[in-house]
C-alpha cells in the first residue's frame, strides 16, 4: 500500500521566502515534492480565505513564509500576516484541526537551507498527522421514497 503523501501548499513572498526557495533550488538539494508554491509579492497579501481555500481544495498542510520582522520589503506586511495567522490558527484549533498543519515561518532570501528544513519538517509532521480530509460524516442515503 502506498504510504500517505501529504499535499502541502506554501504561500511565499517574492522578496524573501520565494528567493530562498530559488536559492535552495540553485543548490540542487532535494526536498519533498509534496510542497507546492503560490507566489505573492508580500506575506501581507495572505489572508484567512486563501488558507481556507487551500485546505478546502485538498491541502493537508499550509505554510505561510515571509520576511523576518523588520525586514519586510514593504515595511510591515509580515506583521499583518502574523496577526491574521493568529486569528485563523485559533479558529482552526477550535475546529479540531491539529496544531502543525498551518505554520508561519520567517525565511530570508539568504536562508535557502532554512527553507528546506522548514519544508522537510512540515512534510514530516503532516505525514505523521495523516490526511486532513477523512470521511468525517457518513454519506446520505437515497430518499426513502420518491413520492412523484
Amino acid at each position, binding site marked *: 500500500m502506498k504510504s500517505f503523501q501529504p499535499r502541502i501548499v506554501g504561500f511565499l513572498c517574492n522578496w524573501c521566502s520565494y528567493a530562498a526557495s530559488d536559492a535552495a533550488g540553485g543548490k540542487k538539494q532535494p526536498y519533498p515534492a509534496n510542497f507546492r508554491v503560490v507566489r505573492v509579492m508580500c506575506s501581507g497579501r495572505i489572508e484567512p480565505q486563501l488558507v481556507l481555500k487551500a485546505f478546502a481544495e485538498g491541502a493537508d498542510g499550509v505554510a505561510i513564509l515571509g520576511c523576518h520582522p523588520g525586514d519586510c520589503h514593504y515595511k510591515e506586511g509580515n506583521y499583518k500576516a502574523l496577526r491574521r495567522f*493568529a486569528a485563523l490558527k485559533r479558529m482552526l484549533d477550535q*475546529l479540531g484541526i491539529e496544531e502543525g498543519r498551518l505554520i508561519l515561518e520567517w525565511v530570508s532570501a539568504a536562508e535557502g537551507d532554512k527553507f528546506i528544513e522548514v519544508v522537510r519538517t512540515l512534510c514530516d509532521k503532516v505525514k505523521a498527522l495523516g490526511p486532513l480530509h477523512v470521511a468525517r460524516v457518513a454519506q446520505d442515503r437515497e430518499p426513502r421514497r420518491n413520492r*412523484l
Partner: protein
Amino acid sequence: MKPKVAFYWCSSCGGCEEAIIDLNEDILKVVEAVDIVFWPVAMDTKYADVERLADGELAVAFINGAVRMDEQEEIAKLLRRKAQVVIAVGSCAHMGGIPGLANFFDRESILRRAYQEVPSLADAQPVTPSETTRTEHGTLTLPRFWERVKRLGDVIDVDYFLPGCPPMPDTIRDALAALLSGKLPPKGSVLSPSKNLCHGCPRLPNKPETLAIDRIRRIHEVEVGPDECFLAKGVICIGPATRSGCGERCLHANMPCRGCYGPSDDKSDQGGALLSSLASMIDMKDADKIDSLFKSFADIPGTVYRFSLPASLVQKGNLLP
C-alpha cells in the same frame, strides 16, 4: 391572468413567512397582483396542488428555510420544475442560516443529544423517533434527516437570493418591485446592495482606524454607547463582512451585527473575511499578545459563521469536527 406564485418553508422558524406579513398594507398589493397557489403556513393547500401544475406554470416560487430533510429537498426540486423563477428567501435558504450551525455535529450525535441526553428529558426511557412506525391503523412515516444541513442552492438552481434573518421589509419590497417590473440583475444575484454594513451604520463616524483592544469581549461585558463602534470596544460585530440593505436595525437597537445578510461578495467566505478585517485592524506586533487576544475569542467559528456555515470554505473542505 395573474401570475401564479408559491411559498414554501423548509427547515425554518417561520420568521421569513412573518417577514412577508410585515409588508403590512403592501401585502394587499401583492395579493392583488398575483395568484398564490401554494402557501402551507397560511393556506390550506396540498402538495398535490403543486404536482398538478404544468412545468414552468408558476411564475415564482419563494422558498425559505435550510434543507435538512428529504421531504424538503423533494419539494424544493418539485417547485424548481414547476417554477420559472425560484427565489431563496432568508439566510437559511441562502446560506444555511442558524440551522446550519448543526453542521458542527453529525446526525447521530444530534439525534442522540435531542432525544436521549438533553437534561430536560422527562421520559424514564427516552425514545428516538424512527422513520417508520407501524401502528394498528397503518404505517406512519417521518421525513429522513440528512447528515448535514444544506443550502437551497445545494439541491436546486436558485435564481435570486433575498438575504436576511429575516429579510427586512424594504429588502422584500424592493425585490418584489424589481420582479414585477422585470428589471432584475443577473441570475444568481443576491437582491440587496453590495456595500458592507459599515456604510450605513450610525457608528461609522466614530469607528477608529485601528482597534486598540487586547481582548475580545461579549456584549454583556462592556458598556457600548449608541455612537460607539462595537469593534472598538472589543465586541465582535460582523458588519464589515456583511452585505447592507437591512437598515442597520440591530445597530440602532444597540446590538452588534451578526451577519445575517451574508458576505458582500456572495462567493466569499464570510468568516474568513471578518477575521481578516479584525486581525488587520488590531495594532499589535508582539506575537504573544496577539495570541492571547485571539485566545480570548471563544467560539470563533460559531460567531463568524453564525448564518453562513454551510456556505463557507470550512464546509466545502469538510474542516468540521
